[in-house]
């Protein structure tokens, strides 16, 4: 599964994405965030304020309780500020 990061999430992680293979018990976006924080100190700091994190699954906005099974790409980013 591909992860992509934008804005200050990308900047703080100092990379624009990762290739990951989470175990079967990682079911939702929320589980994925827990799993990423467990494995990476910088993620742990970044994800302290979960409300500040938005997610898209294959380019569709999803809530944190959305399933990730079968997703090609999960994008993580702060609230959007276009227009």
């Amino acid at each position, binding site marked *: 599964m591909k992860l992509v990061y*934008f*804005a200050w999430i990308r900047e703080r992680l100092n990379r624009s994405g990762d290739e990951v293979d989470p175990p079967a018990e990682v079911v939702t976006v929320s589980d994925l965030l827990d799993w990423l924080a467990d494995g990476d100190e910088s993620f742990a700091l970044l994800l302290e304020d979960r409300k500040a994190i938005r997610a898209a699954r294959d*380019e569709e*906005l999803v809530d944190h309780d959305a399933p990730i099974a079968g997703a090609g790409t999960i*994008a993580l980013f*702060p609230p*959007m*500020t276009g227009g």
Partner: protein
Amino acid sequence: MPRVRLQAEPFDPGAETNAFLKGREETGAFVSFVGTVRSTPDKPVTSLTLEHYPGMAEAQITRFAEEALERFKLTDIAAIHRFGTMKPGEVIVMVMALSPHRLAAFDGANFVMDWLKTDAPFWKKEAGPQGENWVEAKATDDTARDRWKS
């Protein structure tokens, strides 16, 4: 079909207006919104950089434009959004709506802007005398969007 364009290059809102209005004898009401980079004495900005999620940004704006087209029975709608770095006064975004009815044209452009602000994957970073900072999302933008949920 809504026409949605994402581009790094500047564009001319007057030329877009005239191109969009050309050959529209059958509809009478056109509304456009133009958003520009703002810099004030209180909050000087030297440049604004827009990061976007390629593919998804265009898909989201197209979705909002299609929803507006159907919901307000518009004749046509178009949106142009820049990404990359731009200077104060430059155009960031333009939305144009066309309808036989004035209120529908206003609502269509308004609807697309409200959704675009909160649900299209763009992020603004301002540069000024104090350095750089990511622009924070505003709760008032969520409120503006939510009035269309019904």
